[in-house]
């Protein structure tokens, strides 16, 4: 995975609450056995008519947001299906940070594994960021994972919390499996003990 760099870019506003992973990537696109190429179908049913033409009102179809790299979203973003195709589609489109008041648990974990930083902020901060995003392409926001600060286009700063281990992995582009293999002795020991104590497992 690539190292997560300081990000300055356009933020797109999506105030809708409960945006689910079926909306993010409808199941008809889940038949691929690759990890890439899902970006063209990101938010497919909201973004395109059935004939493939764009729905002009949809935020990512508006000229000022076509190159967005940050999403400001309503509550409970990413609820529903566990499909990692959702963060794959988001990352493939070029979005690297999502800010909301809350995220669904599985989506939240999946994001970190794909170079996407999900940031939880209180409602009043999300409201400010949403307004800033609504200014369009000239309003560029900055997300600095290292210092844990989001800066609006007006220079207003908001700090955010992030799990220290997840931050470390993102910043250094670390592979989880590689890290876990370093603790393989602990797993071996656990497995041996469990086999003795609970042979039915």
């Amino acid at each position, binding site marked *: 995975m690539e190292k997560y760099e300081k990000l300055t870019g356009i933020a797109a506003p999506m*105030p*809708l*609450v*409960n945006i*689910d992973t*079926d*909306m993010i990537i*409808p*199941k*008809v696109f*889940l*038949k*691929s*056995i*690759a*990890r890439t190429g899902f970006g063209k179908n990101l938010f497919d*049913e909201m973004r395109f008519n*059935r004939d493939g033409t764009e729905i002009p009102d949809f935020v990512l179809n508006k000229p000022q947001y076509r190159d967005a790299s940050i999403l400001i979203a*309503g*509550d*409970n973003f990413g*609820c*529903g*299906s*566990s*499909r*990692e195709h959702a*963060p794959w589609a988001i990352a493939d489109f070029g979005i690297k940070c999502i800010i909301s008041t*809350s*995220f*669904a*648990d*599985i989506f939240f*974990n*999946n994001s970190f*594994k*794909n170079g996407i930083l999900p940031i939880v902020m209180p409602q009043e901060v999300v409201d400010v960021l949403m307004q800033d995003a609504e200014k369009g392409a000239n309003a560029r926001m900055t997300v600095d994972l290292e210092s844990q600060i989001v800066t609006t286009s007006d220079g207003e700063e908001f700090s955010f919390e992030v*799990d*220290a*281990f997840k931050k470390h992995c993102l910043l250094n582009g670390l592979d*989880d*499996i590689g890290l*876990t*293999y370093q*603790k*393989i002795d*602990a*797993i071996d*020991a*656990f*497995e041996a003990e*469990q086999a003795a104590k*609970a*042979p*039915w*497992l």
Partner: protein
Amino acid sequence: MSAPKTLYDKIWDAHVAHEAEDGTCLLYIDRHLVHEVTSAQAFEGLRIAGRKVRAPHKTIAVPDHNVPTTLDRADPATMTEESRIQVNALDTNAKEFGVHYYPVSDVRQGIVHIVGPEQGWTLPGMTVVCGDSHTATHGAFGALAHGIGTSEVEHVLATQTLIQKKSKNMKVEITGKLKPGVTAKDITLAVIGETGTAGGTGYVIEYCGEAIRDLSMEGRMTVCNMAIEGGARAGLIAPDETTFAYCKGRPNAPKGADWDAALENWKTLYTDEGAEFDLVVTLKGEDIQPVVTWGTSPEDVLPITATVPSADDFEGGKVAAAQRSLDYMGLTPGQKLTDIAIDTVFIGSCTNGRIEDLRAAAEILKGKKIKDGLRAMVVPGSGLVRAQAEEEGLADIFKDAGFEWRMAGCSMCLAMNPDQLAEHERCASTSNRNFEGRQGYKGRTHLVSPAMAAAAAITGKLTDVRTLT
């Protein structure tokens, strides 16, 4: 004496293989269930890195999401090229990596969350994961079970562990007895109606109380299945005699001395008196009514006797969402829910595709016909559920009533295969998600119990099952 623990605390503590200073843990996984849609990229990752499946004997694969449920599905022409590639990939991966496998041609094939318990792979006190959010189902056995993404599937395949931090404890208590016509599905929807779809975020829920104790294993699986729709990482129900009786004799359940040792261990799996929960929600069983969803979120739950709400009834971000739902669903505020005409009925899914669900629906349908012009299908949760339903005469009741009697799979619950709603087609469905487009592009879903689905099939409208019995 050690501090009192919740059931979740006990299972968690028994599975921590490593804990870092910041509380990040490697949680050991006892059972890993695998299906075709979220695993291909994980197996490919292993292959590229030259890694093996650490514990193939603890890994169980079954295709379910994408397989046809038509009777002629043995014919490869019933699948699109890309679906075939995906199912074939699971076939190849299962063989190459040596994991347990139930192919489409095996009578034991079915929805992964139905096959696991049926085959005795799911047992009390275990940790169970699967690349599917409805893994929560297995919590009905007092197993810590939750959905994971494909990167985590690869991580579990390679290391048999998951990088996790502990969730908070939430107790959902359903006191007293349920009224006639009220089922496990109504309980779980009523809870989500109460807590909202994000109410459980950050928590593992333990369901308890008399109404939960009174449920069969099938009912408990229905309740835990939808814990994820309430945002929780997992749902749990402490194992008891009902659980042990269900597990005993299953093909992969322990036998002989192992069974006795397991049972002794399982009997310690309960929340200690005095253990603290971070959040407690209590519902009275007798207050729960047969419910339906009116909108496009599982939290949009109302008793069947209610009327369609207006966006003004909500606050904050939910106002716009409710209006969007009303537009999408084609409903008018003030309309009686029982006046909503439906086009389709779907009975099946990991929520309600077990034998007891089919019995409940057949009970209502016995000797009756579905409304003229209605499309109705039953998709049993597994080949064994299907066979049992045929043996009990349930299949004949469905067929005589005008239902299609299908092969096992996820089918119209997620509509990845050809079992889909047409645009604006309205469905009373026993599945778990009423999201926009979930059952087909611009399709409209009302979530209900199997009995309520059967009642709707007879009248052609959303119907209070209590008025039919």
